[in-house]
């Protein structure tokens, strides 16, 4: 744990949190802007600030549009800036207030969902009011999500802004379902740690200085990258309310899971140039009425405990607290745009030995599941840098998720009910009439960062046992820095028995942003090799191509402007399969036969198609 562990602690001064407006529920007043709610919000903010300062932590205070109309709020922020060095920042959350409602005549509160005209008008309004009240423009800002249009506009018009809160890891259909299909923050497919977004799409890291949107972005909270992928994201993050919401506490309301979560983020420094944590809280969750079955005293205790733990780490020299502006300056020192973010994550809640490997660079984001033999269970083609417009007046009013090619939970993965296939990349080992899938081989992995910047993931060997033959296979994934390419090796390190073994490396893909598949008829599947070039124009007809000596097999997916290809340096057999209506996927596979030890080495490449 030798790398610096940096904390951004962000308190936003919402006077009428959007989730408090309904929380009072049946019998409560319909008017959300009551004096009682706003004065309670200010008191909670003061408590949160006090708990941070008592533990020696500086904060970033994000003023909201509503709070900028309050002299008391502005004076509070100024006083803490003077005394503790807190940054006075500006949030684009917290828009709801009487002034906003009378001016914009809407109940919308998510900046990325407005029309482009309204985005500009609101940003100018909020930033202008901040300047009028504070005398300067902010150096950081944020929302649950900021689309590329907002980030580019803010950078162009307010170049003082260096940092922004700009996404929430894996908040999408899962959050929607958890909130009884009523919470429209669809932001799946983004980074879990800080990044500099591309000018084209917020989710994608910038490829170079030309593509740099000019703002260092941080995620809303540091989330458990396993629990949030598998289940409800809102239960597993560095917000004490998340942990309470998930009921992850004992009878004394102790929350060791939160400390374990923070510690695992510290551990990620092992493979990256620093380690990071972000806590981002408003006042709404800590109200006097209690929240998620927990009375106020329990809410208070959870925040006090969280601050105490961060404070303890700081006292021991294991944590550096920074404001968002300070962090942006730190992040740009020695910046290498092609440097990936690596995350070998272990289960810390369910007590299993499940392990994920997340990898992200300007070309793609992916996740491998060692509990399924290293199967690829998520893949987002960042290389396409899709200019995905979002907001009123676009084709995607509220859904800002970045499309996947593989999402094994939304689209089945290995396990399906009786028929069809799910999206996953794995391998099969075959012998005679028997075949087993790597997805049923539970293992664990080691991660090494090589001198040239490549990343090598090596899986512990697994055994395939057939009726009259057994063999051990070691899988290696080499992530080539800056190339958008993964080399995958399946090595047979032991083989006992007679006959032939075949290894098939396959990719079953689709594309989408949720559980459902849109029309696939623009997809073109190809095979190149000894027989020349062959094509299938997707029409759900269950057709297949076979090439005995293939140099490359590929899927062109125009809907997400992506060319996905697989190949091998040696000519191996290639199979391409079209799906059908009940199983809307495509399948690419390369295979090789063995009678003794040996390896199948293939590569997977992602490129922008156009």
């Amino acid at each position: 744990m030798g790398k610096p562990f940096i904390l951004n602690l962000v308190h936003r001064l919402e006077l009428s949190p959007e989730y408090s407006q309904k929380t009072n529920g049946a019998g409560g007043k319909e008017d959300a802007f009551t004096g009682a709610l706003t004065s309670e919000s200010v008191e909670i903010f003061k408590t949160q600030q006090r708990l941070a300062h008592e533990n020696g932590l500086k904060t970033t205070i994000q003023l909201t549009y509503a709070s900028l109309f309050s002299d008391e709020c502005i004076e509070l922020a100024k006083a803490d800036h003077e005394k503790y060095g807190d940054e006075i920042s500006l949030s684009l959350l917290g828009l709801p207030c009487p002034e906003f409602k009378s001016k914009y005549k809407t109940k919308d509160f998510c900046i990325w969902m407005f029309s482009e005209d309204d985005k500009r008008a609101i940003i100018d309004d909020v930033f202008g009011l901040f300047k009028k009240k504070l005398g300067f423009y902010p150096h950081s800002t944020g929302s649950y999500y900021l689309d590329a249009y907002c980030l580019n506009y803010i950078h162009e018009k307010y170049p003082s802004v260096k940092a922004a809160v700009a996404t929430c890891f894996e908040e999408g259909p899962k959050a929607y379902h958890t909130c009884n299909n009523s919470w429209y923050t669809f932001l799946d497919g983004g980074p879990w740690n800080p990044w500099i977004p591309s000018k084209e799409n917020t989710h994608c890291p910038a490829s170079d200085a030309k593509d740099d949107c000019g703002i260092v972005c941080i995620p809303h909270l540091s989330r458990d990258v396993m629990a949030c992928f598998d289940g409800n994201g809102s239960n597993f993050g560095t917000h004490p309310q998340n942990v309470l919401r998930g009921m992850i506490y004992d009878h004394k309301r102790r929350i060791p899971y939160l400390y374990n979560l923070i510690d695992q983020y510290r551990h990620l420094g092992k493979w990256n140039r620093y380690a990071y944590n972000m806590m981002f809280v408003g006042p709404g969750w800590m109200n006097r009425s209690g929240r998620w079955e927990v009375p106020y005293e329990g809410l208070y205790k959870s925040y006090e405990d969280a601050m105490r733990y961060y404070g303890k780490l700081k006292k021991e020299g294991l944590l550096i607290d920074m404001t968002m502006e300070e962090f942006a300056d730190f992040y740009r020192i020695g910046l290498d745009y092609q440097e990936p973010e690596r995350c070998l994550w272990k289960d810390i809640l369910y007590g299993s030995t499940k392990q994920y490997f997340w990898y992200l660079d300007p070309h793609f984001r992916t996740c491998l599941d060692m509990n399924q033999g290293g199967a690829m269970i998520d893949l987002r083609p960042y290389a396409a840098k899709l200019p995905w417009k979002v907001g009123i007046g676009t084709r995607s009013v509220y859904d800002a998720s970045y499309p996947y090619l593989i999402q094994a939970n939304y689209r089945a993965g290995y396990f399906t009910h009786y028929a069809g296939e799910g999206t996953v990349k794995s391998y099969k080992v075959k012998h005679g009439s028997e075949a087993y899938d790597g997805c049923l081989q539970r293992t664990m992995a080691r991660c090494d960062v090589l001198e040239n910047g490549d990343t090598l993931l090596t899986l512990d060997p697994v055994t395939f046992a057939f009726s009259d033959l057994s063999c051990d296979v070691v899988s290696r994934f080499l992530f080539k820095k800056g190339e958008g390419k993964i080399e995958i090796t399946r090595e047979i390190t032991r083989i006992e028995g007679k006959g032939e073994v075949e290894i098939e490396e396959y990719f079953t893909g689709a594309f989408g942003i949720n559980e459902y598949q849109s029309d696939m008829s623009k997809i073109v599947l190809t095979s190149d090799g000894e027989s020349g070039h062959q094509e299938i124009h997707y029409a759900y007809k269950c057709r297949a191509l076979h090439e005995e000596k293939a140099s490359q097999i590929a899927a062109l997916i125009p809907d997400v402007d992506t060319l996905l290809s697989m190949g091998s340096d040696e000519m191996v057999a290639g199979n391409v399969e079209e799906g059908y209506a009940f199983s809307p996927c495509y399948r690419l596979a390369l295979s090789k036969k063995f009678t003794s030890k040996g390896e199948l080495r293939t590569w997977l490449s992602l490129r922008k198609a156009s």
Partner: protein
Amino acid sequence: MAQSKKGKLNYRCPSCFIRDIDIDMFYDEKKKEYYCLRCCFHGSEEEVLRLNDMLKFRYKWMEKRVLDFGDDDKAPKVEDYKGEEEK
């Protein structure tokens, strides 16, 4: 009969919680029970609290503290939580 109201805390439906749906229950004063709008669950406060405890069954390390994340390909080393971080 008068309309239902929220209880003193926002108790969620335990049956929906286990399928990752957060939905607050309402309180039926006449029957002295909480009930769910989304599914058929209904129960007393005592029953809700008991079920809330039960549904933590999946969090086998909820009361563990990680001592060391160890080698990459090994499970973390843990011990029973002793409360060092909390008063």
